């Protein structure tokens, strides 16, 4: 197809300038942290901004082992995928039920769930930690996973519901006439159709859980169990680590999210791989 741009050459340059400013604004904070992570504790106070005179990697060694960042990352890599899997299944089932099934109080229950999606964690934190303790799940991965799934599911359910609600009802009707069970309709017709949205909520779920702080702080009280986000929050603090070491810890903590992004970029970007005019 013809390549037409609505931008004049001047506009095109202006747009590029805006984009470059945005990119620089996004990357500068990262530069700040990366350059600090390569400086010695003695160099940083006198040279906080410029590139390190002689880059050192001690801070990384220190953060990774003494600061347990590797251990924390492994912990996150265990809890979060399990949490996301549970969350996707729960949101998928509930989203389908709300979006395409008929039952008493459907709307009221849905509104209740929607209402929950707005709840601040701090409002729940004290009671949630008490509940987890009553279930003897304090200091367990399961405890924190349950709290995450419970807390983040309403939002995922909401997204799945709107998605299913928008699907033509004829698809369900046709399947039903074929005599398929509801489980079958969900698993073999609806879920595959909803795959892009499932990928979306999985990513939202992954990020939400990976970055979660208040619940994990109260439930995972043992150092060896901490998540990477909690680890960072613990390292920063009143008598906390110096900026170079904290920076190294931050860079280590960035690795997994960045890798996930690189590996799953296609899904994260919802499969949009072409600009409109190139279609």
């Amino acid at each position, binding site marked *: 197809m013809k390549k*037409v*741009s*609505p*931008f004049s050459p001047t506009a095109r340059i202006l747009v*590029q300038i*805006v*984009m470059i400013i945005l990119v620089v604004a*996004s990357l*500068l*904070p990262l530069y*700040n*942290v990366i350059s*600090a992570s390569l400086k010695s504790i003695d160099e940083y106070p006198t040279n*906080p*901004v410029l590139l390190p005179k002689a880059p050192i990697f001690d801070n990384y060694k220190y953060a990774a082992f003494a600061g347990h960042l590797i251990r924390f990352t492994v912990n996150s890599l265990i809890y979060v995928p399990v949490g996301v899997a549970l969350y996707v299944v*729960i949101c998928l*089932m*509930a989203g*389908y*039920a709300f979006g*395409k*099934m008929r039952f008493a109080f459907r*709307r009221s229950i849905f*509104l209740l769930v*929607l209402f*929950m999606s*707005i*709840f*601040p*964690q701090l*409002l729940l934190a*004290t*009671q*949630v930690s008490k*509940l987890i303790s009553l279930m003897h799940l304090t200091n367990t991965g399961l405890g924190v996973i*349950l709290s995450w799934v419970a807390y983040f*599911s*309403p939002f995922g359910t909401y997204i799945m519901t709107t998605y299913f609600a928008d699907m033509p009802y004829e698809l369900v009707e046709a399947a039903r006439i074929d005599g398929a069970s*509801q*489980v079958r309709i969900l698993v073999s017709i609806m879920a595959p159709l909803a795959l892009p949205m499932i990928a979306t909520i999985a990513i939202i779920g992954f*990020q939400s859980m990976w*970055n979660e*702080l*208040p619940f994990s702080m109260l439930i995972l009280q043992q150092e060896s169990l901490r998540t990477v*986000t909690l680890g*960072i*929050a613990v390292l*920063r603090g009143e008598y906390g680590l110096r900026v170079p070491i*904290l*920076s190294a810890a*931050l860079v280590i903590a960035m690795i997994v*999210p960045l890798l996930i992004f690189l590996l799953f*970029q296609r899904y994260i970007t*919802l*499969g*949009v791989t072409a*600009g*409109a*005019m190139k*279609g």
Partner: protein
Amino acid sequence: MHNRRGFERDGAAPYVFLAPLLVLLAAFMIYPVVMNIITSFTEWKGYGPWKWIWLANYKTMIADEEFWTSIKNTALMVLYIPLSTIVTLLITAFLREGIRGWKVYRAILYIPNLLGYVLMGVIFSIYLRDDGVLNMAIKRLTGSTIHFLITPVLAINAVGFLLVVFLHLGFGLIYFLAAMNGIDKSIYEAALIDGAGFWRTLFKVSIPSIRFSVEFWVVFSFIEVFARMFSFIHTLTQGGPGYSTFTLEYGIFIQAFSKFKVGYSSAWSVVLFLFCAMISIAQIRLMKRRDE
């Protein structure tokens, strides 16, 4: 959602599908919320026995300057939502035109969103200091320093801008690009034939076609402002300087976990709860309109 009139019901199956969600919500959300309302009428440290003091917490709250400051600060964050929506839509439209390097832009702008509030809060607490990279650049250009973190008006606006606009931009781009990608191409072609330029295409074709996505975005932003920003504020400003970035959510945290006035903190929570209810009602209205 579909109107249920005229349909027969699906028996037990929906309840089975909903059971895991509802059980979790009953335990981890409804129970804590109910307890929260109860404890707002008590004097309680968060453990041990409590003392019923009925409305005393609410009376204290209404007279508490901190409380009104926190309301004001939270309201200020909300004002960034329209800006966030407009900026995100505009940049999405740039990218949608397939400008050179749009995929790279989309990927890089997503990074802040990817790293999350705790990491970004800590990163910005280093970056925005008077001796951080940003101020060094500003000093080179203008010869003076901008005290982002210790000037109240700058601190609250920095938090508002970063949290509502900047940190969500990447997610918004992806979300809106996908939504615009779903628009029938022939509509765009028709607009092009009509001689519609960039702005007209954006306001007459793109935005109206993805209206529901935009509404979703607004709701999402409200949720972030009211219920998710604690980690960012806690790692960036701790509510300071003074009470400049002290939000309702942060106040709940300070009352409950710094002063151990859990009963009093619950009264603040009830206010937050009421705000959430208002957002929900707005959301329900939107949905009703969509159904019709």
